[in-house]
């Protein structure tokens, strides 16, 4: 997937400015930046929730048919329905045939297999995030976008989501873009990093380069040095 000169304005305010990035298949990208730099806006543009003003997004292979799943901000779930019903409803809404068995396997895959009949309103935050990732996986997407998936989670929940992201990438070969301001956490599983500041991509880096550059300081300190350049 290639993003070429993507620009987005809200009125006169430019929130994304000439974004140019190439997303390679099978990798996990960390989209890093402070609050308000445009990470969520960029993800919403990529997954089609927001129309951008100029530029283009070019997909490999089947072009526009490249399937994209997304978990943007909070998972949009029906609290009065079970996890199973939420997934089945999404599958039917997007015209994708998932059998009952496939839905149950997907729930097991994300670690919710034993609570498929429990109503979502009773889920913990971590369980909702895992169900949100399962929702993003409906339709067998090639790319999934996760917008701060570990927000408001405790360390146990953060670790579970991290392991799930690695599992999705390893077992399903899905390309993943994760946005976060917690570089330290992202460095534990992302393969590439895109640093954002004021609506622009200011630096791209592989994880090996990040870890070698930050040996003399903490990763967070190194992150601040990039952002404040």
């Amino acid at each position, binding site marked *: 997937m290639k993003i070429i000169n993507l620009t987005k304005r809200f009125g006169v305010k430019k929130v994304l400015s000439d974004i140019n990035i190439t997303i390679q298949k099978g990798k996990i990208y960390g989209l890093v930046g402070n609050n308000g730099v445009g990470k969520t806006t960029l993800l919403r543009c990529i*997954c089609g929730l927001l129309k951008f003003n100029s530029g283009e997004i070019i997909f490999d292979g089947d072009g526009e048919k490249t399937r994209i799943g997304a978990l943007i*901000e909070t998972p*949009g*779930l*029906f609290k009065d329905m079970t996890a199973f019903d939420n997934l089945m409803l999404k599958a039917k*809404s*997007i015209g994708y045939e998932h059998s009952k068995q496939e839905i149950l396997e997907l729930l097991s895959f994300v670690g919710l297999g034993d609570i498929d009949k429990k109503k979502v309103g009773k889920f913990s935050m971590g369980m909702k995030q895992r169900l949100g990732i399962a929702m993003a996986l409906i*339709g067998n997407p090639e790319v999934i976008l996760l917008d701060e998936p570990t927000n408001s989670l405790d360390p146990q929940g953060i670790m579970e989501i991290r392991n799930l992201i690695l599992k999705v990438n390893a077992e399903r070969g899905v390309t993943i873009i994760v946005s976060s301001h917690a570089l330290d956490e992202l460095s534990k599983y992302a393969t590439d990093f895109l640093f954002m500041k004021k609506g622009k991509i200011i630096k791209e880096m592989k994880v090996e380069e990040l870890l070698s550059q930050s040996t003399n300081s903490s990763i967070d300190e190194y992150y601040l040095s990039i952002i404040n350049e």
Partner: protein
Amino acid sequence: MSRSDGIAELCVIIFVSYFATKDYSGGYIKNIYKSMNKFNYIFSKYIYSFLFVVVLVVVKMAFALILHLLFANEYIYNPLKDSFTIGEYIVNRLIYIGLLTALSSLIIFLSTIAKKSSIVLIFFLAYLMFLSSAFYSVMNIFMKTGVEFANYTVFGNIQRIYNTMGSVADIKKAVICIVSYSIVSIIGSWVVLKKKSY
């Protein structure tokens, strides 16, 4: 023959505004927006609202029948007293269902724009209770003498159908109102849905 007490209209406004905005207010729309057929999405809400209206009117008629049997009052069609036939009564009920469905389509359209049930509820309740008569008075200034703007609105037609059996001309006006409001609202909702961001 009972007069319209506004209860069915109120039920439609409350239920459809909540139902039509639920996907937007809860964030569920983010899960399906890119991949869904947007016209089918809007049309399915219209069909579901129609089914709700059918059930509502049938329940209301059943309730009126029970009251009539208990109190022998004029809650329902009485062939000895009312001057219309049972066939005309059925047509009248069908038109009423159509008009409530047209009302639902307007609610769906406003819900697609506003995305919050509170805004939709406030608008329609305010219109129903306070604003409609003032609005009709203003619009009547632009109408030909003897022609009432209310004859071209959903609420105006509901009151007219309920108060009288209606001539063939009245029924034609109501059917045109049903079809035109439904088509414009569905297409309008589809256009807004395609252009909005979520």
